């Protein structure tokens, strides 16, 4: 019986539907915990002249107030992977650089008193000119945020692959466009939470947080705290209420609360509220892209020039500026484009700092790329599908190496595209659209091809440095993850993982994999997903991000289970006097392949290892406790030509979406959303469907409703869920999901990651669909979200221009 690939119900659910889930705010691991409230900056950019805390400190129940100066005295600025000396502390020191930046922390008996005390703190500020827009930050004229950097550009790299000059020389047409992608967040329903305790005797910090990695950030935190790495113990709760990358941004608060606990001598707890979360947690970058395509009349794309500038907010913090480079290896998407020039820039402005978010860099990247496919076809008078097909990689080309070094492991992009066209009746639609236009109805169809990278290679992040700069330190590569499978003396199987799930069902899939390997019922297996950096099997790449569980985390589990299996087979072999190769393991016992009657129970083989090591074959250790670490050899460090394979597996998504635009109101209605997926071997179809729908809802939100908005003075405008609009059940359209399976040849189970693809595709596919619908009005979408007012003014302006 194989459990992998089956839609098993999740083992997590029983506790979650009954209120027995254990989230961060539910924890109370120590006595005498005190509560924090944070005073935040009302200014986008200002000098702090003085902070008066005396009145607040006098309030009964208040233990103390901590400000930036005290924190800076005990810490170092967080290290970050760029060369510029940006000083980023978890709390403002001397200056504030965005609305919502922490300025003081009050610790009190309870949260109510701590918040009362906030209003008693007086801060004198001297307001400075803010920088809000990317293009302003690029100009030398703009006010500099970080004096020690001397400019608002904090990372700037040029890349050149193939022969771009020739490509542009040989082109029939060169098409240029500019696009804006907004600043959006993923707003998990659970906010950040931290409990921190400093013990003086050990000079050690123990910090509980709903932090899910990447655990490269552990080293960033220990550097800031100035302690040896084993003096920072991070523990995560059993359950985390969603993240989609956003909660990796809790790390500055972990350090802040650690230091506050140290200064005030009590364990402290901080639970973020929603306004804090929206104004000052983390988000994706907003991006301006300039793109130029060199094309032949038949639609062949000879080369691309892309320049993009990401806004990382008031401070550049790890893992930024990785948002610029996450898609570098798949920069040319699903197409055969060998000549590519990239200019990547990160700027700081007076907005909140950014970090990981579902799709990381992908939505920003595919927005210009896939918009261009439609623009090119329009320019050349060709059908967009024809242009896509002309450039789309064929099955025979896999494994395919991209211009930038990505190694697409497997796929059949044309099959996915054809499946989509069949399922939407493309030819029929074109007829319908013409009719509709005649009747004043604006129907549109948009497409998007997304190569979905999963399982990040630690090495790609170092693309922020030039090859010369990289050469000065140890190369970075790999995507290591660990897992431990153990069996106790009575036969109980426990698995420990370090993938820190935030709702993706890793416990369930882990149980499926181990059940298959050891021939037991998955329900009998206990999976411990809580991370504890002192006791869990982890490495720098551990954690939950870049859809890495399916290609990497699950592989570590698989390898650890194989180790246990092999040990059990050897023990059984010596008991049965049969070579291990002739044995199979199933239904709770080890038996001889050709003589199924002959065998020993699993319990007995396990028992021997614990209770009677004397009976073990030579060279076999007692106990059953195996850890495996897994990485993939394709995750190499970038070479001196900036060639890198940034992810280990590459899935594919093809979207075809039909909309209707009401030109009177500017409202966009999604009529049908068809999405075709290829994520290799699917480990659990239920979970797969949930991940796809969730990722799609995020992409849809960014396309249609969501934006962390600021005014011209850098004042933050969307501090509640009344202002920051997330899709609810009534906004989700009819979605048709179909799969094809091109197993990855490089992962043991053939699986690839998924769940981010539609976050990348939805913004651009909707922009394409709306543009298609408004073709008679010559409206071209280059900005999101597709809010009615924006669409309406686009239509309106066009009309006035024409009249």
């Amino acid at each position, binding site marked *: 019986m194989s459990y992998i690939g089956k839609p098993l119900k999740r083992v997590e*659910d029983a506790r979650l539907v009954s209120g027995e889930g254990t989230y961060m705010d539910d924890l109370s691991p120590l006595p005498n915990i005190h509560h924090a409230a944070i005073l935040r900056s009302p200014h986008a950019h200002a000098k702090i002249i003085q902070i008066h805390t005396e009145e607040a400190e006098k309030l009964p129940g208040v233990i103390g107030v901590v400000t930036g100066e005290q924190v800076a005295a005990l810490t170092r600025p967080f290290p970050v992977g760029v060369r510029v000396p940006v000083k980023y502390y978890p709390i403002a020191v001397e200056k504030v650089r965005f609305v919502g930046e922490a300025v003081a922390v009050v610790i009190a008996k309870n949260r109510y008193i701590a918040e009362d005390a906030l209003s008693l703190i007086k801060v004198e500020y001297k307001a400075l000119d803010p920088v809000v827009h990317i293009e302003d930050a690029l100009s030398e004229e703009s006010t500099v945020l970080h004096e020690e950097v001397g400019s608002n550009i904090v990372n700037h790299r040029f890349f050149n692959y193939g022969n771009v000059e020739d490509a542009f020389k040989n082109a029939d047409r060169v098409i240029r466009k500019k696009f804006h992608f907004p600043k959006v967040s993923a707003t998990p*329903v659970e906010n950040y939470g931290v409990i921190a305790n400093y013990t003086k005797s050990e000079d050690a910090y123990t910090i509980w947080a709903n932090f899910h990695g990447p655990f490269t950030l552990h080293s960033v935190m220990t550097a800031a705290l100035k302690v040896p790495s084993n003096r920072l113990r991070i523990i995560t709760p059993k*359950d985390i209420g969603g993240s989609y990358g956003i909660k990796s941004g809790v790390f500055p608060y972990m350090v802040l609360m650690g230091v506050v606990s140290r200064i005030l001598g009590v364990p402290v707890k901080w639970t973020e509220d929603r306004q804090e979360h929206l104004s000052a947690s983390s988000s994706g970058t907003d991006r301006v892209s300039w793109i130029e395509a060199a094309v032949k009349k038949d639609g062949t794309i000879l080369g691309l020039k892309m320049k993009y500038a990401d806004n990382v907010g008031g401070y550049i913090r790890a893992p930024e500026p990785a948002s610029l480079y996450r898609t570098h290896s798949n920069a040319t998407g699903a197409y055969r484009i060998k000549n590519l020039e990239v200019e990547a820039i990160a700027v700081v402005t007076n907005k909140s700092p950014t970090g990981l978010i579902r799709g990381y860099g992908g939505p920003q990247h595919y927005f210009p790329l896939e918009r261009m496919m439609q623009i090119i076809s329009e320019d050349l008078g060709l059908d967009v599908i024809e242009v896509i097909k002309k450039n789309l990689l064929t099955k025979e080309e896999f494994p395919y190496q991209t211009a930038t070094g990505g190694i697409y492991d497997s796929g059949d992009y044309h099959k996915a595209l054809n499946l989509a066209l069949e399922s939407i009746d493309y030819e029929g639609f074109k007829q319908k659209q013409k009719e509709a236009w005649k009747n004043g109805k604006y129907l549109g169809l948009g497409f998007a091809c997304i190569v979905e990278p999963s399982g990040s290679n630690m090495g790609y992040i170092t693309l922020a440095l030039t090859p010369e700069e990289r050469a000065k330190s140890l190369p970075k590569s790999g995507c290591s993850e660990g897992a431990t499978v153990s069996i106790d003396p009575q036969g109980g199987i426990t698995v420990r993982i370090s993938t820190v799930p935030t709702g993706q069902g890793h416990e369930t899939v882990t149980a499926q994999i181990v059940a298959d390997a050891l021939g037991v019922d998955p329900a009998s297996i206990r999976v411990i997903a809580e991370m504890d950096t002192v006791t869990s099997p982890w490495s720098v790449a551990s954690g939950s991000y870049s859809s890495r569980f399916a290609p990497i985390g699950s592989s570590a589990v698989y390898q650890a289970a194989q180790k246990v299996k092999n040990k059990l087979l050897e023990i059984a072999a010596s008991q049965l006097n049969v070579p291990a190769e002739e044995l199979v393991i199933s239904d709770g016992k080890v038996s001889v392949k050709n003589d199924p009657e002959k065998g020993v129970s699993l319990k007995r083989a396990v028992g021997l290892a614990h209770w009677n090591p004397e009976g073990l074959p030579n060279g076999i250790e007692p106990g059953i406790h195996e850890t495996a670490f897994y990485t993939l050899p394709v995750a190499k460090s970038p070479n001196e030509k900036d060639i890198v394979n940034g992810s280990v597996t590459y899935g594919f998504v093809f979207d075809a979406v039909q909309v209707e635009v009401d030109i009177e109101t500017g409202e966009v209605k999604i009529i049908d959303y068809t999405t075709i997926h290829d994520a290799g071997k699917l480990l659990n179809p239920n979970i797969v469907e949930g991940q796809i729908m969730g990722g799609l809802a995020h992409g849809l939100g960014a396309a249609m409703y969501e934006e962390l908005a600021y005014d011209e003075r850098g004042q933050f405008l969307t501090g509640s869920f009344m202002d920051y609009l997330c899709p609810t059940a009534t906004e989700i359209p009819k979605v048709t999901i179909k799969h094809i399976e091109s197993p990855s040849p490089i992962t043991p189970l053939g699986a690839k990651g998924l769940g981010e693809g539609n976050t990348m595709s939805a913004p651009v596919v909707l922009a394409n669909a709306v543009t298609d619908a408004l073709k008679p009005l010559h409206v071209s979408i280059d900005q999101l979200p597709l809010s009615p007012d924006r669409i309406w003014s686009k239509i309106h302006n066009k009309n006035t221009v024409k009249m």
Partner: protein
Amino acid sequence: MSNLSVQDKVKISFSINGREIEGEAEPRKLLSDFIREDLGLTGTHVGCEHGVCGSCTVLYNGKAVRSCLMFAAQADGSEIQTVEGLAVNGQEHPLQTSFTECHGLQCGFCTPGILMSSVEMLNSGEEPTTQEIKEMLSGHLCRCTGYKGIIEAIEKVCKPNACKEGEN
């Protein structure tokens, strides 16, 4: 009316999940905080404290309310039900079962609140249309699921055969 300072506690008693409780709280203490901190029932979650996300939803005299928008003192004398009170004699409520079967949750943070609103809908005795289910759900944010599994889970209890079965 007497003058209370914020820190003068008031006595509160109500029934929660069928159990009578007595307690004290500052007049400004939110019902959601009282349930979580004073009663230790952490199944009721807090996601926004401004009445939009719905994760703090409980039944107040049978009606779904946002406990972050009520003071604990307002619950005096009422009957409150939280997610912890849904199972009867260790038997899951049919909605709890259907949420699992239809993969109606991922991180589970929004789930208790949605369950409580769904229970109210179910208890009304009227069979809702899918559109009505969606409208009820529009008072809740779920950032994980895209709502599909949630809608199916609720339909399943109201209209049999609407959800495809899991393996076991």
